[in-house]
């Protein structure tokens, strides 16, 4: 479950479309995901398995159906690893300020 796999899985417009559709409505079947898409059922199945391999979606059985859920955990990891670190200096400053102010009360 490497970060490379996540970025590779995201580097495809069709797969991002599938994630967007799950973000709009979570827990869809393969049939529902195929509706109105300009992609063959086989292509959608292949993309879904790549997304599942990168842990970007989770599949759960509900009765006879297989439902697809977006998994926000790897996206959050990327956000923390690649976005939050550029804001970290602010966080440190805020945290130092908080400590200084709280110590004042002691």
């Amino acid at each position, binding site marked *: 479950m490497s970060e490379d796999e996540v970025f590779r899985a995201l580097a495809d417009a069709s797969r991002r479309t599938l994630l967007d559709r799950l973000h709009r409505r*979570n827990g869809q079947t393969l049939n529902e995901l195929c509706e109105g898409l300009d992609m063959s059922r086989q292509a959608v199945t292949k993309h879904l398995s790549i997304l599942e391999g990168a*842990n970007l979606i989770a599949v*759960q059985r509900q009765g006879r159906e297989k439902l697809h859920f977006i*998994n*926000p955990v790897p996206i*959050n*990891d990327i956000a*923390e690893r690649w976005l*939050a670190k550029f804001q970290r200096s602010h966080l440190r400053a805020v945290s130092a300020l908080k400590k200084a102010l709280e110590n004042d009360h002691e």
Partner: protein
Amino acid sequence: MSEAAQSTFVYVTYIRTSAEKLWSALFQPEFTRQYWYGMDMVCDWKVGASWQLRFADGRVGDTGEVLEIDPPRRLVLRWQNEFRPELKAEGPATCVFDLAPSGEIVKLTITHSSARKDSQLIVAVCGGWPKILSNLKSLLETGEPMTRERL
């Protein structure tokens, strides 16, 4: 997942640890306080026991009941928000923790679902779980949480 679930979110993460360690980290106060912004759980950990999730200052955030427990593999909680009136009004949700060890890795799946369509509770926890799980993974794999502050 219940057949009647209308709003569901699923969180999956793979953590390099054992199921026993992960189980302790998920539910024991001395662990949860380290990666869950100081929060802890109060519970007797048996079927039918009442369950509480408390903030660092002791306020009760959520309450519920143990519906199923099979350490260190599976826990099912009834989950009722107590601190936001609009979420409390929705009534209880269900939260399932599944731990599936495979070699040196444990696959943790958390399924939080509500019988309410478009549940705001499920949307609200959606922002929280990924950060909590990143922190937990970091704590178990490196000995340090990513952050002790709420981002």
